[in-house]
Structure formats: C-alpha cells, structure tokens
C-alpha cells in the first residue's frame, strides 16, 4: 500500500462526501469531474490503460460537457461563461 494510492483513494471518498454535502449543482459537477479524473489515474495504477483513456474521454470529458450543457440550457449558468472542455 503506497502513499500515492492511499492519497488518491482518500480523495475519491472526500469527493463523494463533499458532493453529498454541497447544495450548488455547479460545484457538485466540478467535483464530479475531479472524481472522474482521479478515477482515470487509478485505472492507470491498476494497469488498465483502456479504461484510463475511456474514463478520461467519457467520465471527465463528455459527461462533464453534458452536465454543463444541461445547466446552461436550463439557465443555471449563464451566457458566455458556460465554457466547455
């Protein structure tokens, strides 16, 4: 059990717990994208590069975009500020 792994795993739990506590959807989405990015790093540690690529493209990329577009469509984040990627 090395320190980097423990740090990453702790971060996963912290992300999950903080999303459960926050009230603002936007913050929740940002933390969720962080969660996905850490997950991609963990896939690399677990020797699964396929999953790392997929998680980075899908979990942090496309899912994040979908969340932001949703928030923008329903007017919770506005105008030009809703930048993607």
């Amino acid at each position, binding site marked *: 059990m090395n320190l980097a792994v423990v740090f990453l795993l702790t971060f996963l739990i912290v992300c999950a717990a903080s*999303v*459960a506590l926050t009230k603002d959807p936007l913050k929740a989405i940002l933390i*969720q994208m962080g969660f996905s990015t850490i997950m991609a790093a963990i896939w690399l540690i677990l020797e699964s590069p396929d999953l790392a690529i997929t998680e980075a493209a899908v979990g942090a990329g496309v899912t994040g975009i979908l969340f932001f577009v949703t928030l923008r*469509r329903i007017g919770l984040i506005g105008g030009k500020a809703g930048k993607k990627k």
Partner: protein
Amino acid sequence: MGSNLMTNYFEATAVICFGIGFTMLFLNKNLIKKVIGFNFMDSSIFLFLASNGYISGRISPIITNSSVSSENYINPIPAGLVLTGIVVSVSVTAFLLALTTRLYLRYHTLELDEMIRLSNAEET
C-alpha cells in the same frame, strides 16, 4: 468481520463511494445531485470490479513481445466488463439529464418532490 479489510483497500473505498452514491441517487431531492450520485455509484462499482482483476507485479494485457505466458499479465476480463459498463453508465446519464432538462423547462425546479406536487396539481 473477515481478515482482509485492510488489504482490500480498493474494494473498501469502492463500497464507501457506492454507499454515498446509492444514498444520493435514492434520497437526494435534487435531480442533478441524483444524476451525480448515479455516476458515483457506477464508477465505484467499476472500481470494485477492476480491482478484482489486478495482480501485483504484472502488467496490462497488451501482448507486445512474444512472451504469451499468463504469468506476466493481469486479468483482462474485469477491464473488458468495465468498458462495457462505462458505456452503459454514460448512456443512462445522458437519458437522466435529458429528463432533467425537460422537467426543469416545464416546472422550473430541480426538486423531485416539487415536481410531483406540480404535476399532480396540473392534472386536476
């Protein structure tokens, strides 16, 4: 309690995140938070699955040189299953978000209880 809790720290993390995600999907009232809870739930299940395939000291099963002995490579099955699972998870996320969008455009709220109330009022 069994003896392997401290060695199975990947699985332990995964089930803690699963519990949080499950509760968010089940009991949180905000639809966006529910969707994120669903994402956490699925991601942690995949972490659980993938950690089953890992064997310390071995590398990912991309066979570059001619040594095709199973002594060198980790188990490819969980990775394949997780790939399938991630696709399912992103599809469901898109569907849930589309539902959220439609509901918000109709009722101007993200709270599910409020939507139920408004939709019942609309019907009668």
